[in-house]
């Protein structure tokens, strides 16, 4: 896999790609207050793949929305690549989202009336790229996700796994600082899930920072690091160093060999 297509502007390695400080989000009012995220402190170094896991309703989707500026915290700070984003105005935030964040959703959220290629081009055009630049970039990404021959297909003509690959290409079109994925394989079978995970693995090898929310342990196990969220607070923080170092496989421990 060539690096040029995935390539992003090299960030300052000393600044975390993403930082949350005392992050909280409370819904409701008065007696019916619900604390979805409650005092989360987290640094995601540039280039890290982080999985956020936890039972449903633990606040993991809310956390992802706060990270990406889709929702605003009740308290605390969110920093993207050294810039504080939680107190930006709507327009500045929208501009920053387009440039710095790539979103991937469980239900793909592709535009039904646009072709695969047009779906990928759209955020580039919105960010001010020329039609030609957007077209070239989309073609590159289509090749990288292995769907060049599906460029002119509508989403309804694609399988779930193919739609998600298009959605990932779209998330990457503006070379974002971070990709935020919410249950990216939630609608996919095992084979399509592995395809998506292989794609994420390539992104990770190219230095892309990736935060994914998942309740699937098999997906989380491919990350560099897993944090568990329980009742809105971080309950566990585990590094899977083997994934980064190509570690020595301990698969032998899984096999009992008896004569």
């Amino acid at each position: 896999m060539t690096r040029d297509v995935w390539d992003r502007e090299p960030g300052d390695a000393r600044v975390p790609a993403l930082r949350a400080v005392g992050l909280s989000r409370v819904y409701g009012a008065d007696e019916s207050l619900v604390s979805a995220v409650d005092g989360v402190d987290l640094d995601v170094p540039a280039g890290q793949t982080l999985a956020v896991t936890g039972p449903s309703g633990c606040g993991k989707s809310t956390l992802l929305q706060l990270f990406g500026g889709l929702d605003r915290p009740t308290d605390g700070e969110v920093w993207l690549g050294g810039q504080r984003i939680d107190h930006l105005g709507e327009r500045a935030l929208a501009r920053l989202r387009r440039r710095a964040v790539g979103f991937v959703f469980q239900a793909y959220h592709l535009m039904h009336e646009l072709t695969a290629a047009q779906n990928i081009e759209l955020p580039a055009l919105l960010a001010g790229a020329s039609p030609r630049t957007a077209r070239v970039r989309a073609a590159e990404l289509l090749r990288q996700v292995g769907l060049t021959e599906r460029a002119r297909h509508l989403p309804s003509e694609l399988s779930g796994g193919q739609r998600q690959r298009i959605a990932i290409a779209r998330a990457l079109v503006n070379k974002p600082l971070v990709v935020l994925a919410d249950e990216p394989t939630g609608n996919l079978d095992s084979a399509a899930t592995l395809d998506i995970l292989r794609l994420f693995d390539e992104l990770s090898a190219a230095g892309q920072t990736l935060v994914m929310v998942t309740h699937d342990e098999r997906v989380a196990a491919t990350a560099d690091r897993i944090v568990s969220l329980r009742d809105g607070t971080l309950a566990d923080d585990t590094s899977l160093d083997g994934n980064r170092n190509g570690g020595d496989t301990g698969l032998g421990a899984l096999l009992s060999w008896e004569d």
Partner: protein
Amino acid sequence: MQDVVLALLVKEPSHGYDLRSRLAAALGPLGETLNAGQIYVTLTRLEKAGLVVLEREDVPVRGPRRKVYALTATGQKRVAAWMAEGAGVRADVTEFHLKLVAAAESGLADPLALVDARRRELMNGLAETQRAALTHDTDSQAGLLLEGIALRLQADLRWLEACRRTWSARAAREEGGGLG
């Protein structure tokens, strides 16, 4: 089973009948498959190995005599080592369940700490499995085997979540009870 029996003797010496009913309580319907004589065979073996010692023989007013066994220093050491070591990724559900019960009954380890350690152990096993799965064709024989292993590890990890819930609720209850 030997290690579990040793753990049940940590707090105080006991006899086969008591050990058997405590095991049966922890095992529920699976305990019914425990052979009635099994516990006595295990105790005899542990005694031969010098891990337990016959402390006394209780003679109740009614019913049979009861041989009361106590841990030896070697037995103490062995059960502490068992408690400290990981169960191994292939350990089954019953084995780890009994370890949690043994940890709580002996006070040798915090069940929740064991759950966290096991979660890390299984997660690393799953990471290795998935790393291999990503480099193999999903439709190959290797891919099929790796999928099976990954699904089993995932099931174990999900059950561990249930363990964590139940044991932390129990810990909270006992803390509250201790104050009251």
